[in-house]
C-alpha cells in the first residue's frame, strides 16, 4: 500500500435532471424572483441568508455551515451559448465539452489518461454506481464502476464460498489466455483482468475503515461514504464520480426538491467531517454540477428545463465565497425571454479544476481556452 498520498483528489457529484439553481441559492430580496415564481417559491423569511441578496435554501443548513467556515465556493450562472434543453444532449455536452458535435470522449476520462498514462492503476478513476457515465468514458482508459464495494468483482455472488478462490483462479486463467488471441478477445480479456485487479485492491476497504461519522441512509450519503472508504484506504484514486438523481422537477417541486437538498447537503457535510477526522481533508475537493438550470417562471407545480445553472466547489483548500455573477433577474435580460442567462462557461470551471487542482493541462480536454476562476487557497 502506498504511503498516504497527497496527490490531489477530485470528487464530482452530478445532480441529474437539472437542478433548480434559483431555489437552491435564492435571490430572496429580488422582486423579479417573486414575480416569476408564484407557486414554486421559497418565502424570504424561511431562507438562510448569506448576504443582502442571496440565501441558501432552508434545507441546506449543513452546507450553510460549511460556507460560513469558508469552505464552499458557489459558482453562479454556469452554462454555455445556446444552452440545450434536452437532458440527454445537455448532459452529453457537459460530459464531453462538445456542444457542436456528438463527442465520445469524457472530460474526466481524458484527465485520468493524463494522470495515469500507462494504466498502472485501474482505480485511478472510480464511478460509484453501475454502468459508466460518459464523462469517465474514453476508449482504452480503465475506469472502475462500483455498484457495491463489498460485492465488487466477479464470482463474489458464488453461493458456495468454498469454491470462490478456485473459481476466481479459473476466471483469471481464462481471461489471461485471451490476451494475444485477437484484438477483441484481448480487449475483453484485459478488461476482465482489470476487474480482478480492482477487486483485489478493494478487498480490504471494508475492514480497514472506521469512523465516528454516521452517514444518513440515502443514496448520495451512501455514495459519499463509499468515496470516503476508498479514499481513506489510499488506493491512489484521483477522480471519484457519484450521481444524485431526481432533480427533474416539472411537477411537485416543492414536495420533492427539499428532500434532495437535505440529503445532498447533509451527505457533503458528513463527508467533509469524515475526511477531517482522518486528516485527509487537505487533498480532496468536491465539485457539484448539473446539466442545466430551470425556467424563470414556474408552471404552477414545478419548473421546466431552462439554462444558467450553478455549481459548488467544496473543500478545506477551497476559498469560500461567490464566483462569477448571479445571472441577471431583469426580465429584459432573460435568455429566450424566459431563462437565466449564463455568466460563465462550464468549460472554464472544468479547466479550473483540471489545471489548478489536478494539475492537468485543460485545453485539449475542454477543447479551447475559457475563463477560469480562482477558487483555491494559495
Amino acid at each position: 500500500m502506498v504511503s498516504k498520498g497527497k496527490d490531489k483528489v477530485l470528487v464530482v457529484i452530478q445532480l441529474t435532471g437539472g437542478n433548480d439553481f434559483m431555489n437552491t441559492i435564492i435571490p430572496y430580496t429580488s422582486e423579479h424572483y417573486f414575480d416569476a415564481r408564484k407557486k414554486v417559491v421559497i418565502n424570504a423569511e424561511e431562507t438562510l441568508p448569506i448576504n443582502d441578496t442571496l440565501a441558501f435554501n432552508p434545507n441546506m443548513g449543513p452546507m450553510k455551515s460549511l460556507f460560513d467556515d469558508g469552505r464552499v465556493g458557489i459558482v453562479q450562472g454556469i452554462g454555455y451559448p445556446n444552452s440545450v434543453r434536452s437532458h440527454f444532449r445537455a448532459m452529453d455536452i457537459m460530459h464531453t465539452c462538445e456542444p457542436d458535435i456528438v463527442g465520445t470522449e469524457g472530460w474526466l476520462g481524458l484527465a485520468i489518461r493524463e494522470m495515469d498514462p500507462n494504466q498502472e492503476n485501474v482505480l485511478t478513476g472510480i464511478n460509484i454506481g453501475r454502468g459508466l457515465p460518459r464523462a469517465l468514458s474514453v476508449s482504452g482508459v480503465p475506469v472502475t464502476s462500483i455498484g457495491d464495494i463489498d460485492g465488487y468483482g466477479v464470482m463474489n455472488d458464488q453461493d458456495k464460498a468454498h469454491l470462490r478462490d478456485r473459481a476466481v483462479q479459473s476466471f483469471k486463467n481464462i481471461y489471461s489466455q485471451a490476451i494475444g488471441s485477437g484484438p477483441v478477445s484481448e480487449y475483453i480479456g484485459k478488461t476482465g483482468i482489470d476487474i480482478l485487479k480492482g477487486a483485489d485492491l478493494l478487498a480490504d476497504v471494508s475492514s480497514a475503515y472506521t469512523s465516528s461519522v454516521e452517514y444518513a441512509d440515502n443514496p448520495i450519503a451512501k455514495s459519499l461514504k463509499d468515496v470516503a472508504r476508498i479514499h481513506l484506504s489510499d488506493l491512489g484514486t484521483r477522480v471519484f464520480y457519484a450521481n444524485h438523481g431526481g432533480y427533474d422537477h416539472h411537477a411537485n417541486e416543492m414536495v420533492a426538491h427539499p428532500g434532495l437538498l437535505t440529503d445532498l447537503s447533509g451527505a457533503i457535510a458528513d463527508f467533509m467531517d469524515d475526511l477531517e477526522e482522518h486528516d485527509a481533508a487537505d487533498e480532496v475537493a468536491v465539485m457539484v454540477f448539473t446539466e442545466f438550470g430551470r425556467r424563470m417562471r414556474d408552471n404552477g407545480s414545478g419548473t421546466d428545463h431552462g439554462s444558467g445553472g450553478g455549481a459548488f466547489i467544496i473543500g478545506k483548500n477551497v476559498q469560500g465565497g461567490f464566483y462569477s455573477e448571479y445571472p441577471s433577474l431583469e426580465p429584459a435580460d432573460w435568455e429566450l425571454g424566459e431563462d437565466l442567462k449564463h455568466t460563465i462557461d462550464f468549460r472554464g470551471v472544468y479547466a479550473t479544476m483540471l489545471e489548478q487542482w489536478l494539475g492537468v493541462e485543460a485545453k485539449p480536454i475542454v477543447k479551447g481556452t475559457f475563463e477560469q476562476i480562482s477558487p483555491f487557497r494559495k
Partner: protein
Amino acid sequence: MKSDRAEVAHLFRRAGFGATAKELDLLTETMRYEDIVDRLVDVDESPDIDQAYLDRYYAGEGFQIYVATWIYRMLNSNRPLQEKMALFLHHIFPVAWSKGQHAYTLFSEIDTFRKIAVTDFRNILLELSRDPAMLYWLDNNENHKGEINENYGRELLELFSMGVGNYTEDDIKNASRAFTGWTFSQPIPVYPQGHFHSKFEFHPEDHDNDQKVFLGYKGDFNGEDIIDIIVKQDATARFVTRHLCNFFVEDEPQVPAWNIEKPRDPELVDQLSKIFLETEGDMKSVLRALFNSDGFKKSIDRPKVKSPTELVMGVLRQVGSFTDIKPGLEGYYGTVAVMGQELLNPPTVEGWHTGHEWIDSGTLSERINFASQEFQDTDKPGVQDILQRAGSLDDDPDKLVDQCLDILGGVQVSSDTHSELTEYALSLKKQNGKEGGSADISDLIQMIVSTVDYQYA
C-alpha cells in the same frame, strides 16, 4: 440427424436469441438447415403471439411494462427472426425517448418495426418516413415548403440508406424538399381519456411541388419518389447489406468508418447486394441468402460481441423462467440498461456503438454476474433440464465440458478455455468428496457463462 447441430445453434444465436438443447434436438432431427432458414425467414407462416393476451397481463403505459412485453416476445416468439429484425431496425433507426419524451409513440414505432422488418426495403423506408416518432425525432414536422429543415433528409441518406460519400449536399436539400408536408397529428393529452395514437399526416399545402433534382433524376418528387430512387442505388444495397452483416455475421467497424474501411467479408456484401438490387430490396431474399451463405456459416468463430439484449435474452431462454407470462419480466429492462443498452433510449441518432464497445469493466462485470447468478438457481425449469442432460461430475471431465457447452445452445470456446474448463470440472469433482461443501454441474455452467467466449454471439 438432418442438420448439423453446431450450425443450427449458430443460426439461432444470430437469427434469434439462441436455442435450448431441447429445441436443437427437435430441429436437427427433423429439418434440413435450409428448411430451418426458410422457416425463420418466412415469418408469416409461424403463428404470432396474441398481443391481446400480453396486454391483459402487462397493462399500463410505463416503459418497463412495454419493454417487458417486447422481452416476452423475444423469449417466446415462434418468429424469432422477426423480433431480431425489429431490434435491428431499432439499432439502425434509433429514435430515443430523450427528445420527445412521449413513450407511447415509441412503443408504436417498435410495433411498426416488427410489422415491416421482414418485408422490402422500400416499404421499410416508407413506413419509417411516416412514423410519428421518427418525424419528431428528426424534426420533419419542422420541414416546410420554402423553409426546409434538412435533418431527416440528411440522416435518411447518411445513416438510414446510403452512407456518406454517395450523394451531394444538393441531394440532401432536394430530398428534404420532397419530404415537406410530411408530419403527424399532435397526440392529445393523456388525461382524461388515455393515450391516442399520433398518426402520420400529409399536408399538401405545405408540400413543395416544384421540380427537384435528386441523384441525377428530375421531377416534382414527393418523399415516396425519393425512396424509390434510393432503393435502386448500389450504395443503398451495399450499405444495408453491410448493416445486416454487422448485425448477423461479424462485427464491423463503427458506421462512420465505412466509407474508408472495407467490409470484413467483401464477397458476402457483394453477393447480398446483388440480390438486394435484383429483388428490389426484398428482405426475405436477402436474409435467406445471408443465412445460407458460406460466409455466414464460417462466421461461427469470428468475433461478434453480443449486445446486452442478446446476452440477457440468451440467458433467460436457457434458464426458462419466462416461458409463460408472470410478474418480474419488467425488471430486465434495467438489467439490459446497466449493461449499456437502454432500449427505446439509444444515445444518439447514430445508435449504439456495437462490437467491443459494449464492453468496459462496469458492463463486463454486470454481464458476468448476471449470467452466473441466473444459472445459480437450480429450481428454474431450464436449469433443471440442463442438469438432467449434463450427466455427472464423475464423468470424463473433458466430455462433460463438451456436453455442457452443447446443452447451453452450442457455445463455442477456444481450446485454451476448453482446457481450463476441464481443469475446473476436475477440481469440482475433487471438491465434491471433501468435507466443508459440495459442488455440482451448475458450478461448471456458471463458469462457462463467465468466459470471454460467452460474450460472443
